[in-house]
Each structure stands twice: as structure tokens, then as C-alpha cells.
């Protein structure tokens, strides 16, 4: 007979995020009185043909490896979809913040060059999207972040500031190690319509929330397609734009060239961008800019406020 735990733990795990209700918060003032900081997240990824399996998550569970259909479905994104979406993004002069598998920089220098020429911001999304952090030891995870950072610096001459787990994978230690490695922010804590502090054992870390809702991958696993994506993105924007009059809001749209880059879908990304960018008080920002703004103007107030709220 199973014994159901009746205990009410204190504090609640994971104790990474202080409870900070949306109402009655320190006000966020974005540059130029913007109501919404809008970040655009194309996932630029590589999925391996023969990935090593970590025993926890098989990226291609349909058949014994390789899975030519699944592999090529995803690879289409880099061969075709990326270039199609680039035209859309250029039309609206979007400065993307890409969740980037660092391996792409080495495998596909033309993609790297296209992104760098446009001065995109890069968020470390692991090395490949078929390798997850989940089962790493602390030492492996520490080394992993270091090697991602070194590879990125060697390829681009820049420093990475943001971290997004490949397929959102994390360990319980990830925030501590991310802060230790020199990142300013994670994107995995999709818990808010504003940035938020993340508690770490030393230093400071914040989250610039990514989105699991306005995201083509989970939607298009079901019957939803580009039209629905456009519809909900516009609705999301309308609501946040209204609320942003009071205190700045954050909005992320996420997509994948292997999905959104298909011929029948790209126009719906254009529809979203056309709609949002036609509003005045939008700060089409990169995650690095948003993080720096929040750290400079809101972080300390938010931490102090959380201490008051939770007593």
C-alpha cells in the first residue's frame, strides 16, 4: 500500500524564484516609454544524425537510429527555412535574439555569417539540440558551459550573456553554474511577463522568460498551424500592450525555421511582425539589452520588494 506523503515542505523547492505577484510590483520603465519589450527568438539549431543517448530522453524515439525522416525534417530548417525567414525578419528590421546551438557556428559558417552581419544577439542553447544537460554531473555541466562559451568566442569574438537549456533541459544546479560561468541571464523560467531575479549561490542571475505558449514547436505537434500562431501572438500582444501602460511588459515569440520556415507558414510570421511593429510604444529589443536594463534599473528593487511581500 502506497504511503502518500502528507508533509508540507518549507520552503517550497526549488527555491530559485521568490514569489513576486504581478500586482503591486516596482514599476518597470522601458526606454522611450515603451509598453512592451519585444524579443524575437528564432531557434537556430542542429539535430544530430546519430546522437548519443543519455538514457533519459531519446530525441528520435520513432525508430532505431538513424531516423532519416525526423533528421531531415529538422535539417530542412537550416538548408531552406532559415533563409526564407531571414527575408521576413529583414523586411521588418528585426534584431533577433536567437537561442543558438553553438555547434551551428562551426558546421554552417554561412548561417553564422548571416546572423553576425545582422548583429543578432545569441543565447547559448547548448551545443546540439540532441544533447541535453539533464544527466550531467556538476563537473560535466561546468565544463559544458565553459566549452560553449569558448567556442562561441572563438567563432564570433563576442561573449555569451544568456543561457537557454537545449530542449529546455536543466539540472538542479544549472542556475548556480550558469551564474558562475559568467552569464547574466537564463531564459528557461517561463514564469512571468517581466524579467525576474533567480536566486543563485553566488553572484546575480536573472531570467528573461522565453515562451512555451507562443512557440511553433509545441503548437504544430498538434493540429495548429501558422494562422493560429499569428492569431495568438497578436492577442498576446494586445493584452500586454494594454497592461504595459502601467508597467513595462515583456513579450517573446519563439519559432523554428524547420517549422515556421515552410512555404505555407512564413507569411504568418510576417503577419505577426507587421502587426506588432506597427505600434509606437514597442521596444524591439535583444535579450542582452533587456537583461542589462533590468539589472541596472529594477533588480535591486525587485529583490527588496519580494522580501517584503513574503513576510
Amino acid at each position, binding site marked *: 500500500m*502506497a504511503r*502518500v506523503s502528507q508533509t508540507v515542505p518549507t520552503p517550497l*523547492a526549488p527555491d530559485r524564484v521568490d514569489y513576486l*505577484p504581478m*500586482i503591486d510590483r516596482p514599476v518597470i520603465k522601458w526606454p522611450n516609454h515603451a509598453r512592451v519589450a519585444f524579443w524575437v527568438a528564432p531557434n537556430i539549431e542542429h539535430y544530430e544524425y546519430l546522437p548519443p543517448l543519455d538514457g533519459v*530522453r531519446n530525441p528520435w524515439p520513432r525508430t532505431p537510429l538513424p531516423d532519416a525522416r525526423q533528421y531531415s525534417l529538422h535539417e530542412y530548417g537550416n538548408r531552406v527555412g532559415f533563409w526564407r525567414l531571414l527575408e521576413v525578419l529583414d523586411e521588418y528590421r528585426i534584431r533577433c535574439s536567437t537561442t543558438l546551438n553553438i555547434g551551428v557556428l562551426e558546421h554552417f559558417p554561412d548561417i553564422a555569417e548571416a546572423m553576425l552581419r545582422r548583429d543578432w544577439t545569441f543565447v547559448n542553447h547548448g551545443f546540439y539540440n540532441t544533447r541535453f544537460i539533464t544527466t550531467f554531473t556538476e563537473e560535466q555541466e561546468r565544463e559544458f558551459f565553459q566549452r560553449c562559451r569558448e567556442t562561441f568566442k572563438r567563432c564570433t569574438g563576442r561573449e555569451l550573456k544568456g543561457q537557454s537549456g537545449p530542449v529546455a533541459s536543466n539540472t*538542479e544546479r544549472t542556475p548556480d553554474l550558469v551564474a558562475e560561468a559568467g552569464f547574466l541571464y537564463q531564459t528557461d523560467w517561463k514564469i512571468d511577463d517581466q524579467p525576474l531575479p533567480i536566486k543563485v549561490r553566488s553572484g546575480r542571475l536573472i531570467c528573461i522568460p522565453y515562451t512555451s505558449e507562443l512557440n511553433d514547436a*509545441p503548437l504544430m505537434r498538434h493540429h495548429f498551424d501558422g494562422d493560429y500562431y499569428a492569431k495568438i501572438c497578436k492577442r498576446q500582444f494586445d493584452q500586454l500592450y494594454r497592461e504595459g501602460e502601467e508597467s513595462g511588459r515583456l513579450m517573446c515569440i519563439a519559432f523554428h525555421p524547420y517549422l515556421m520556415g515552410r512555404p505555407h507558414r512564413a507569411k504568418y510570421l510576417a503577419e505577426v511582425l507587421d502587426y506588432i511593429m506597427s505600434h509606437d510604444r514597442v521596444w524591439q529589443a535583444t535579450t542582452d539589452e533587456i537583461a542589462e536594463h533590468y539589472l541596472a534599473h529594477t533588480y535591486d528593487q525587485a529583490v527588496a520588494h519580494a522580501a517584503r511581500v513574503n513576510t
Partner: protein
Amino acid sequence: MPADRTYAFPEPHPGMDHDHYDWSPLNVVRAKLEWPNKARVTLCVIVVLEHAEWKQPPDSYQVPNLAGGYGWGPFPDVTAWSHREYGHRVGIFRVLDVLEKHGIKPTIAMDALTATHYPFLVRHCLKRECEIIAHGISVNRMITSRMSEAEEREYIRTSIDAVARATGKHPIGWLGPESGESARTPQLLAQAGLRYVCDWGNDEQPYRMKVPEGELHALPVSLPLDDINALWDRHVEIGRYETMIRESFETLYRDGADNGRLLVLNLHPFLIGQPFRIGCLDAALDYIIKHDGVWAATGAEIIEWYSNLRVEIP
């Protein structure tokens, strides 16, 4: 799967295959139900404030398709956990604002972890004059028949006590996490001093349950309109969801002219409270509330009215 029963050919008798309530088809043998002011439809909105735990506690039972994130993956699933927590941080305030705008007093189903760890939310709900009902310990620990009777009693007691401590008031309603029950749950709820339960989705009126001690009513939830059921489990488009709520109401409003009906919406702020969804709830409720003959009430108000009627269910 091991067999746990031996099968004999059934020897049915008229009526239910359990003792929780009697067979009573609506509009066939049941007396007419009159709502206050001859309302046709009573609307009850249950807002579920349930905490999703970072790690599933050992030996607890949770549904295999627990909603959140991309679906719960390997531990730790930051995405699913965060998605759930968004409801407590952000979504709840949108939902409560919409309900207040339409003059609908919410019935909050609050689990023990929320009642204990979110004093701000408790205060906020009390300020809005919400009714708060008990909702188990957490969504990761549901009642099932794997519990012993003693465990189940303790579980119910822990849940009620947490709400009573946080709100200063003994709750009278119950919604199990994921509507989890054993075969003895109704009687244990009644023994614990609860007056109504929202786990049973089989009617468009309240009804009495048969319990050996105390009293218990079912306040039946419309499961197809539950946001997790519609938006998460069945991937209903948000515009269609709004229409479904309207269509449900239209039918109940028509049927309610002869015999009062009940519409209980069960909502989760981490889903319906997302910016792109909240407008649909707003529009659907706006449509409902604009009709004459709608009584928006809390669970306690409905059960109070119903239990004072002299309607006997045969």
C-alpha cells in the same frame, strides 16, 4: 497488468452500481429546481490555485498527462514547473479582475501548499470576497484507492486545516486534485465537515450524495469546458473555446426556463490567465452575464440555497 478481480457474469439491479447517490434522470423523475429570483441558469466559476511541486513526492500518485509546459519531461522540468507557477504569479490576477468586472464572486479551490506558502494570494482572495474551498495538498498528490482509509482521512484533514489556518474559516467545499477519489471519499469528506464536492461531473443541477454521517452535495463541474480538458488535453482553439462556453450557456438558458440549470466552470490561471487567452474568458462571461435570469454565485451560496429547498430527489 495483474488481474485484481475475478469476473462473474453481472447480475444487475435497477439503479447505480455504487451507493453514492440514487439514479435520478434530469427532467424525467426529478422535481423542478427553482433558483433565487427564478433564475434560469446559475453560474459558478471555480478558480483552481494548485501548486505543482518541483519534484513529485515519493509514493504519491499524479496523472500521467499532468498539464504544463511541453508536458512534464525528465526531472527537473523547469518549463512545466514555471508554466504552472505563472498562474500564481501572474495569471490569477487577470482572472480575478475579469470575474470582478462581471460581478462574479469566485470560488477558489486552494491546495494546502498554496494556502501555506502564498499568504499574499490568500489575502488577495479574501479581499475579493472569494469563497475558498479545500483542494488537497498539491496537484502531484491526488487521492486514489491506493490510499488506506487512515491515510485518506489524514490527507483530507491536512488539506482542510491548511485552508482553515490560512483563511481563518473552515472550508465547506472540496475539489480533489485532478478530481481524485477513492470509493470512500464522499463519506470521508462529509465526516470531515464538508458540505459539497466538485469531483463529479455528471449533472446540470446540484444533487445530494448519500453519506452515513453528515451531509454532502455534488456541485457538478462541466468537464468539457474545464480549460485543462479543452485547451490542454484536447487542444481546442481559443476562439472555439469561447464559443463552446457561449453555446453551453445558450442551451442551458433555454432548458433552464423549465427547470433551473447550473453551469460550473473550472479554470486554471496558468492556462486561462495567459495574455492571449484571458480575453476569451472575458468575452464569454460578458455574454453570459448580460442575460436576465442568471445567478452568479459561489459554491457555498448554491449549496445553501439548494439544501434549503424542499426538493426531494426520488
